[in-house]
């Protein structure tokens, strides 16, 4: 078993967890973490894994599995840890039974996120050990080490990845699975019931644990000094180590830290005493730098290394040494190529209608539909976090109404996002007699992260059939009146507009469920029986088109506006939205052998 493979960091984490005898994993999908659970599902003969409705639920389910005595893991993107922070902080008090690993996949540079918070701060705040792999081979080994530390020190352990570690491939040697015996469960009220009396004792134990962990961190093999020249020494962790190696070269010495909480201060002190100038190279916050400076060790950090965005070797050469690369320049500029809603996307119908409404604030949420905030639709006013659209919409509607403003509010949220944390928001709007309109964009999947199953799709991560959430029944159970629930086909604009007009006229909470599968989804048998999904395409009749540009305003990437307006047959799915907005009847079905325009 010495086969070498090129794996992404996410694939390597799944492999490492499997080799470590993992038995339980839960997660909510989120870029760049999603593929960890998708890859764990490949080992479903040996372990159990699931998609939870949100990160807090995933974390708590994994706590239960740990208490039951098995090695368990929970994975999420950085902002997901905010959702799961409540159980995280107290689980650090109680400690574990079976080993427990929290994987936080941070996104410096915000490739696919709303912020770039540095989750290493969570390790220090929750007082849990933290490991930071710098490539796929380390990702695999560090998962195993994390389980060992978790069981040895009786605490959850955080493995912090970043987008470049998650989504870069490097060489990994495959190993065998080593089954770990299940630790028998025994009732232990003093350990697992965090009442104030018990928690006070746990709190004291936590301080002792941290002292032992600090000793461990100073001696652990993943914290290693690589000495070369003594003029420059660099302390680094995670993928920043790889960038530092390229930028500072072979003449510098490196203190490569795999475990950065507790910070191995004695190691840093020794390393610092062996070099003339000490640099700290880390992405985002001066997390290591603060701890190093607090220990009275002089170093150069964020005054040279940028604190925002991703780093790379280029950025370091420029910011630390003032070196600018010799590059070629083209005189012609490339036009921007921003991402857009796909041709045939069911969201387009909703947002085209919303883009025509006056005095309507649209509170958005996290998902592909955030792309409707871009021109030409420009139909979303706000976007903060998962599940926030409905609650922000409720608050805004209440404030506008008290302030005597004619402004109406429509909240938009995807199906998976609604299950994540929109349900309680809608409960708030109903309970507090709100008046906002909530549109649930039910595209029958978790679209943005690449089509994961969710509680509304009827399938589990492990591919089993399961119960489906009945969204209209759920809304009714929350207290939305039957006549205030509208179910529409988002591709039929008149239907969308009629429901919106009716709902906006009401002074009580209303829900519009726009139900149609994501155009990129692999359709299930249920999708095929419920919807007409046969492929087709449309064509513009050049003799009737007056080039008014209304169809272009739908933002459909299949429509091309140049000297003439035309539809790219290869891209068009025949959704029909452009045909409904055309006032001249110039758009119709493409017929093989027709004029083809």
């Amino acid at each position: 078993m010495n086969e070498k493979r090129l794996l992404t960091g996410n694939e390597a984490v799944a492999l490492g967890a499997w080799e470590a005898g993992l038995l339980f994993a839960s997660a909510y999908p989120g870029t760049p973490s999603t593929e960890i659970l998708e890859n764990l599902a490949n080992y479903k003969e040996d372990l159990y894994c699931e998609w939870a409705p949100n990160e807090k639920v995933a974390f708590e389910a994994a706590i239960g599995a740990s208490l039951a005595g098995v090695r368990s893991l929970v994975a999420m993107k950085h902002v997901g840890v905010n959702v799961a922070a409540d159980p995280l902080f107290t689980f650090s008090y109680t400690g574990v039974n079976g080993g427990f690993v929290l994987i936080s996949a941070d996104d410096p540079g915000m490739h696919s996120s709303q912020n770039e918070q540095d989750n290493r701060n969570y390790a220090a705040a929750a007082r849990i050990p933290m490991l930071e792999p710098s490539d796929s081979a380390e990702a695999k080994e560090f998962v195993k080490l994390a389980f060992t530390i978790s069981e040895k020190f009786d605490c959850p352990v955080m493995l912090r990845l970043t987008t470049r570690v998650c989504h870069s491939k490097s060489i990994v040697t495959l190993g065998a699975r080593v089954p770990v015996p299940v630790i028998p469960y025994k009732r232990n009220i003093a350990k697992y019931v965090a009442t104030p009396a018990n928690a006070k004792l746990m709190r004291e134990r936590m301080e002792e644990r941290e002292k032992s962990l600090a000793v461990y961190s100073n001696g652990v093999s993943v914290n290693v000094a690589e000495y070369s020249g003594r003029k420059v020494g660099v302390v680094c962790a995670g993928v920043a180590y790889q960038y530092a190696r390229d930028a500072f070269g072979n003449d510098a010495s490196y203190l490569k830290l795999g475990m950065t909480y507790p910070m191995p201060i004695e190691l840093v002190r020794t390393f610092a005493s062996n070099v003339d100038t000490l640099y700290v190279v880390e992405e985002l916050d001066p997390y290591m730098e603060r701890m190093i400076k607090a220990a009275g060790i002089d170093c150069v950090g964020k005054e040279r290394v940028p604190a925002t965005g991703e780093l790379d070797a280029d950025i370091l050469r420029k910011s630390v040494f003032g070196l600018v690369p010799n590059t070629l320049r083209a005189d012609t500029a490339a036009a921007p190529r921003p991402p857009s809603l796909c041709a045939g996307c069911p969201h387009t119908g909703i947002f085209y209608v919303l883009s025509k409404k006056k005095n309507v604030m649209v509170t958005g949420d996290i998902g592909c539909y955030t792309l409707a905030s871009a021109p030409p639709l420009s139909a979303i006013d706000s976007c903060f976090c998962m599940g926030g659209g409905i609650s922000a919409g409720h608050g805004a509607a209440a404030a506008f109404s008290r302030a005597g403003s004619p402004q109406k509010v429509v909240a938009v949220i995807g199906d998976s996002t609604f299950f994540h944390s929109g349900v309680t928001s809608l409960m708030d709007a109903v309970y507090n007699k709100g008046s906002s309109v909530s549109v649930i964009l039910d595209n029958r999947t978790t679209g943005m992260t690449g089509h994961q199953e969710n509680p509304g799709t009827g399938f589990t991560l492990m591919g089993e059939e399961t119960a489906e959430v009945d969204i209209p029944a759920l809304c009714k159970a929350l207290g939305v009146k039957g006549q205030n629930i509208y179910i529409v086909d988002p591709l039929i604009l008149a239907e969308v507009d009629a429901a919106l007009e009716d709902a906006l006229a009401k002074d009580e909470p209303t829900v519009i469920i726009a139900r149609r599968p994501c155009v990129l989804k692999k359709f299930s048998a249920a999708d095929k029986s419920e919807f007409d999904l046969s492929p087709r395409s449309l064509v513009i009749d050049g003799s009737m088109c007056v080039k008014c540009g209304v169809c272009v305003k739908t933002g459909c990437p299949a429509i091309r506006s140049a000297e003439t307006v035309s539809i790219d047959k290869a891209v068009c799915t025949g959704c029909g939205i452009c045909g409904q907005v055309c006032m001249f009847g110039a758009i119709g079905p493409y017929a093989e052998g027709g004029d083809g325009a």
Partner: protein
Amino acid sequence: MKDVTGILLVGVGGQGTILASKILSDGLLEKGFDVKMSEIHGMSQRGGSVSTQIRFGKKVYSPIIGKGEADIIVAFEKMEALRWFEYLRPGGRMVINDFEIPSVPILMGALKYPEGVLAELSAKAETSVCRASEIAAELGNAKAMNVVLLGALVSALGMEGMDWKSIISRNVKKGFEDMNVKAFGEGVKRA
């Protein structure tokens, strides 16, 4: 050969840059190189500009290619060649698919697709223009354009001698092996 060689594959979401990079990295691994490959998923899948980076050599640290560091850039779309041009090492080589995909601002008529891209880049760097999309269409599968370009890239690297037939076959969907091997061969020949 330099310590580390950098190859940048750029294109538009959905064009198959990732599969081409995967096949190439697999071959490089088999040849005994240290290899790192980096790609970004997520938002960019939705018709945005995408890039995949491969660095290989005796020992590779960073998975990312900096500006002025790519030895070869393979552009699956013409305007993307322009966008990433400053990543090319002076003296490096461009392989460009002569194929246009207008972006949303161009579709809307707000901007024009840039003209004279091939002429300008050819004048500034060693450039091979490959009609990969046409070649793939002639072979009966327009999607195999990515493997045609892979052939052109392997030819630019001077690595045609390896057993690409089996490397390609184990990386593509069952039933599509022969077609992809043929597309690769055309890319090598007509680079």
